């Protein structure tokens, strides 16, 4: 209920502010707005491309389509979230098909709560239950480990309550087990089919963090992948790393050469093996590491991180001066902004942006979103974003409105081409609330938000717990 009150008060304050500031001057474009012309040949923003590519015509077509809709946030805008490293406390030991080995070593740095499971390479060739039953996991001292048991089968289902074997080939270790090199005895069927053995050590201090330092890699450029191996606060030195790309269809791609930088950090280069004929999409860097921890225990770790590979088919060439569109009565019906798109290939381009106002809390809050898409041939074209004035009107927005989070997206190739979080610094001329034309029809979602005071992106009134 507190949230409900807060939201209602917030909305009321917004309206109050609008009424109080009703005498604010309107006028031409804000003098504070920087030049809308883009710098550096059109490349700007946290995702920016310069090296346009000519690729086959995108199959997606749909004609020009534009819309405007309400958005709301009471938290205020933030930059795109940090691209974080993926952490791993698991590793995989590979048993090649046809191996003559009858026993394989499994290095475990922390047995407490560790899980071991056996899988195989090809569906249909996996070791069957009988083969898995014949395998034994042994501690470093040679003692066998009992397979994991499942939960009690409820007697309510007409069967006696009992614990069942979790499936052969799965073990869970305990804190009483020692750390070190466990071993698994292979059944003949496993030797023939090969296997992959998962070792998961949730309580191990040995962590592998994989980060694609460059979340976006444009064709013709390269990025970096960084692997950090730490055992608590101690860096893991001299580890053996292998890495490769995984394609968007999850097929194994080219290897990524890794080298040790020092301090537990290892790096490699990505993007150098991709060409403009490779599809724009998300690619994953898979990393396997093995070595000896500072405390002298052998370990294995497997993990990965991903990046977006972009073959740019277009970019923002310039952004025109934002303008107010008025009807015959003088009411502002929309806030329009033109964007010149330089297309190097035939594609369907989508331009999206937010319209924001500064709230009483001093933060910028989005009030509307606009999106326009069109099929463009190579050349330079204009795409216009049109924000319906009814959304800032219903939110009680007054004064200067800004364009933020401008994106250029390829609908033909499903990839983000360019993004400028600051919206190229575009700002609309100041306008009075009473000048804004109200919505002819209020969408149901917006009406619901108004009724419940949630317009500004706060939680709904808290219901009683059930």
């Amino acid at each position, binding site marked *: 209920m507190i949230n409900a009150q807060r939201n209602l008060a917030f909305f009321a*304050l917004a309206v*109050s502010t609008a009424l109080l500031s009703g005498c604010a001057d309107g006028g031409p474009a804000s003098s504070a707005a920087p030049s809308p012309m883009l710098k550096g040949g059109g490349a700007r923003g946290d*995702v920016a491309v310069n090296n346009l590519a000519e690729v086959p015509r995108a199959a*997606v*077509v*749909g004609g020009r*389509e534009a*819309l405007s*809709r309400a958005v709301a*946030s009471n938290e205020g*805008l933030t930059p795109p*979230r940090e691209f*974080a490293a993926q952490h791993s*406390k698991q590793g*995989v030991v590979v048993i090649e098909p046809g191996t003559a080995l009858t026993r394989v070593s499994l290095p475990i740095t922390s047995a407490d709560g560790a899980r071991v*499971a056996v*899988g*195989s390479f090809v*569906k249909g060739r996996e*070791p069957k*239950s009988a083969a*898995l039953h014949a395998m034994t996991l042994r501690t470093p001292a040679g003692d066998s480990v009992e397979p*994991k048991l*499942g*939960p*009690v089968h*409820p007697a309510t289902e007409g069967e006696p309550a009992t614990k069942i074997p979790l499936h052969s*080939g*799965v073990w869970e270790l305990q804190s009483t087990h020692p750390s070190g090199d466990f071993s698994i005895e292979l059944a003949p069927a496993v030797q023939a089919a090969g296997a*992959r053995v*998962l070792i998961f050590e*949730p309580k191990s201090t040995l962590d592998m963090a994989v980060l694609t330092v460059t*979340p*976006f890699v444009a064709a013709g450029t390269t990025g970096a992948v960084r692997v950090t191996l730490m055992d608590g606060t101690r860096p893991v030195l001299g580890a053996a790393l292998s890495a490769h790309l995984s394609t968007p269809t999850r097929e194994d791609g080219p290897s990524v050469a890794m080298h040790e930088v020092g301090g537990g950090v290892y790096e490699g280069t990505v993007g150098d093996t991709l060409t403009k004929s490779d599809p724009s999409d*998300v690619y*994953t860097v898979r990393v396997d590491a093995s070595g000896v921890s500072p405390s002298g225990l052998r370990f294995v770790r497997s993990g*990965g*991180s*991903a990046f*977006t590979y972009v073959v740019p088919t277009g970019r923002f060439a310039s952004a025109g001066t934002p303008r107010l569109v008025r009807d015959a009565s003088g009411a502002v019906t929309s806030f329009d902004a033109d964007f010149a798109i330089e297309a190097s290939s035939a594609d369907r381009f*989508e331009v999206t942006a937010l319209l924001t106002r500064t709230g009483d809390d001093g933060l910028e809050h989005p009030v509307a*979103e606009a999106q326009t898409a069109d099929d463009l041939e190579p050349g330079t074209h204009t795409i216009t974003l049109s924000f319906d004035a009814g959304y800032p009107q*219903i939110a009680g927005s007054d004064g200067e409105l800004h364009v933020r*989070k401008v*994106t250029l997206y390829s*609908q033909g190739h499903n*990839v*983000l081409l360019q*993004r400028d979080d600051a919206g190229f610094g575009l700002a609309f001329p100041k306008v009075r609330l009473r000048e804004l034309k109200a919505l002819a*029809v209020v969408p*149901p*979602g917006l*009406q*619901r938000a108004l009724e419940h005071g949630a*317009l500004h*992106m706060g*939680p*709904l009134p808290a*219901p009683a717990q*059930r």
Partner: protein
Amino acid sequence: MKFLQAAIGMVVGAVGLLASTTASAKNAVIYVHGTADWNPGGVYMNCNGAQCVFDPIYWGSSSACGTYSCGLFGWFTCDDSCWLWGSGAAENYWESGNVSSMANGENYLVVSYQGLSNAPTVGWGQVVDQIQEYVQTFGITDITIVTHSDGANVIRYAEAHPTQPSPTGSGNTWNSAVGSRLAATILMAGTNKGTPLADEVYTLINLPIIGDIADLLIGSAGYVGPAVLYQEQANMQAANYNWTFGATPDEGQSYTSYWLNGAYLWDFAGQGTSYNVFGGQCDSYWEAFGLWTVSGLVGWNWYGDNPSGNTDGFVGQDSATYIGMQWMTSNNQQNHNQSRRACGSVAPEEQYILYGVNNYGW
């Protein structure tokens, strides 16, 4: 203070005025399932109250039921009777009684789409096509969308790119199918940040237990489907970062997305107080067993020894609450299967949805 009162009065008055603009609303709840292939040629459940009709235009006839995989009820218990259920996602994924109950007397549509064979960046096309035909056929004006699991990503993609034509070639867009009709999207157990299960599917492609249980969870059509692989956590991080699914909430996401939360909702364990998880009240012991096994392998709870696991056995709480606003809270444990089904005497998620529809709906 007077000014504040005047402002509130203005808001109330405005709301009253606004309400009149939708007096002739025709509401519908639309259910979007998660990672599974449900053949769109199956039975079309368009129910208005007790009257259910089949629409052969898009969905074909019930004779197509034989093409279904056994899906969620497969592997352990699959036999010929599985095929006879044959009403696609409405029966095998959601259960028809449950979707009817959640709709609370409103019209509803249960979409069926290739949600395993297609990544969410593609699978949304069939969903939009079906919504468009449904909306036009029945004159729907207000839509509440309820998703489960990867259905969240399907809707997130479509909503983020409302001007993109459907990949099916129909020319339909989210804007034309849903657009301003959208009242809310309720994302149940959404894999917005992916799931460790998808990571392990890659890591141990054919680990028998992963494979078989993945079959159990997501259909025997092949668990190494594009949608599963897409839900790898690293992949989803990149996709979220590059705004494939639109901006995140603090980056300007629409206010219409909600999720569920609760003290124990995400505390999936295996025994003790979590009797409901294996209680057999709304899913089979073996389904719960599958979730329990998988969650343990990826580091979540086994025997409740890791209460910080915060999972429903398939997706983590952090992933499910990544986007949108909290809809309401719950203290009832629900595993990933139970959260979309009726659970006997225990308050199920359906009641939460029902609660929301009653209290925040039309």
